[in-house]
């Protein structure tokens, strides 16, 4: 059976074995992808329209208006990027340089700290293919891939047979789930599910580090030393262990030092790697591209050749303190994802959205520019959650432009 495979851009997993059927130039059937991927690849329910101030406009006018807003703004912010191709991200960074803009992406309130630690070699990481071939102990900490990345367990981490794990999940692998609630993934892990109260992750990280150092691990919540040691021993015996860090863990940690300490300890007594559960398909790509350019992964301000970096450059702080006077939002919907009190600040400044779908942000925006959906209508490259670059091609033809092209046009207009 000879098949042509495509890449799914539904989430950070970038599954590369998708089969499609076309009907009248549109994707009519998507095989092997999960529901999330099918929804993304079969186009949005409400494609965005090209609009200025709510009235239909031509693409040309919208680009000119965008350039005008960016030129007139003193300190614009360029935000989003999680759902853009690597080329679009590079173009957006150039645009930010030219307009002396703040630049931030969704990792700012997502997996940013973990990816930063990985890029700075503080934490050991591996690829998902290595996990598939070698891993015997897999820990899902604060993550529920069954819902966030449905094929995470079946394509890479738990169920598949790998080169050194020929007997698959039944005999060769152990899946452990640490979470505040019994999620769908926890159900699959069965008796290897460790429930902890909210905000107790740091305590358990420290207790595990102690347990692995030969001390008696103690926590203030109802988990006895015996149970923690049992978990610590499972980790210790791993030949190739991996911790899949979800947002549950990232959000509950003030700083990631306790996690780094546990990883160091685990690598003294055993062999452990870490993979961040990146949500949007190319959020990690944005981190990589900006890191290459500036040495930082997100939250920067360009002024001439200088780059400023810090928490004050994050999109949340910028909006809260009303530092910015215009926003260019690419492939993101901050009005839906940011807290209401922060998101409402976007109503007071001119907002430009570049998005394939009609979102809450694009409906409220001053200028809304529609683009082709990356993955189904335009190709490019993206970085998978484990840092592997994946190239993908378009499935269908469209007259809508790709986000990289639109950004180039705006650049030209400036």
């Amino acid at each position, binding site marked *: *059976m000879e098949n042509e495979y495509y890449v799914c851009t539904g989430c950070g997993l970038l599954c590369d*074995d998708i089969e499609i059927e076309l009907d009248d130039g549109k994707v009519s059937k998507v095989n092997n*992808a*999960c*529901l999330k*991927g099918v929804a993304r690849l079969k186009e949005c329910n409400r494609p965005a329209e090209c609009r200025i101030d709510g009235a239909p406009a031509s693409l040309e006018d919208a680009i000119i208006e965008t350039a005008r807003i960016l030129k007139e703004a003193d300190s614009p912010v360029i935000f989003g990027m999680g759902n853009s191709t690597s080329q679009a991200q590079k173009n957006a960074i150039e645009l930010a340089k030219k307009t002396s803009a703040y630049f931030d992406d969704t990792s700012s309130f997502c997996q940013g700290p973990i990816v930063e630690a990985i890029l700075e070699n503080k934490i050991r990481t591996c690829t998902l293919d290595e996990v598939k071939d070698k891993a015997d102990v897999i820990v899902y900490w604060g993550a529920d891939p069954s819902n966030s990345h449905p094929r995470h367990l*079946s394509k890479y981490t738990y169920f598949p047979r*790998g080169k050194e794990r020929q007997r698959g999940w039944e005999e060769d692998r152990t899946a452990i789930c640490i979470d505040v609630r019994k999620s769908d993934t926890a*159900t699959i892990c069965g008796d290897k599910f460790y429930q902890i109260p909210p905000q107790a992750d740091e305590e358990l990280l420290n207790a595990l580090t102690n347990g692995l150092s030969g001390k008696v691990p103690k926590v203030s919540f109802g988990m006895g030393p015996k149970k923690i040691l049992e978990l610590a021993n499972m980790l210790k015996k791993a030949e190739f262990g991996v911790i899949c860090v979800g947002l549950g863990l990232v959000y509950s940690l003030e700083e990631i030092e306790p996690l780094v300490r546990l990883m160091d300890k685990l690598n003294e007594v055993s062999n452990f790697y870490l993979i961040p559960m990146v949500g949007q398909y190319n959020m990690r790509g944005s981190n990589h591209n900006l890191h290459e350019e500036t040495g930082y992964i997100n939250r920067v301000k360009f002024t001439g050749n200088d780059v400023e970096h810090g928490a004050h450059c994050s999109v949340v702080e910028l909006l809260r303190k009303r530092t910015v006077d215009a926003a260019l939002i690419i492939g993101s919907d901050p009005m839906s994802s940011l807290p209401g009190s922060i998101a409402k600040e976007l109503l007071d400044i001119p907002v430009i959205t570049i998005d394939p779908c009609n979102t809450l942000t694009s409906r409220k925006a001053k200028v809304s520019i529609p683009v082709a959906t990356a993955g189904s209508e335009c190709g490019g490259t993206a970085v998978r959650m484990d840092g592997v670059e994946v190239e993908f091609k378009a499935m269908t033809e469209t007259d809508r432009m790709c986000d990289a092209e639109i950004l180039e046009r705006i650049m030209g207009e400036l």
Partner: protein
Amino acid sequence: MTNALEIYQLLPKTNCKQCGKATCMAFAAALLSREVVVDDCPPLKEDKFKNNYEKLSEIITPAGEASESGMIVHTEKCIGCGNCVVACPVNVAEDPYGAGSGNAPTSDNVILRVEDGVVCLSNVSQCRRFGKNKILCNGCIVTCPTKAIEFV
């Protein structure tokens, strides 16, 4: 998933034999395996068992939905994660480097595959739960995070 005892509790428990079975318990077991339908129990249609009749009709999904191996996929619950596709022992034996390794199935002989985000059944006769010599394999049931697969 329902069991025979649960069904038995909702039956008249009179062992009247009107259904052709020796006892109500036997009828419950037959109902569970979809050999008979709820309407085959005449006393259940009487007014005093009205509530039980309605409950039973709800529990017992019509056998029409089930495949020949007795598998029912609740498509509204399935998220297309493909855990069952990878875990199914028949899929692994037929297609070790495709379905068995987490990739797209590369053989036409697999029995489970994901189409349009929902799991679909083919080659039912290869399922270990098919036919006379069936074994109660549960590879696809225990690996399903949303409990979308049921066998009757």
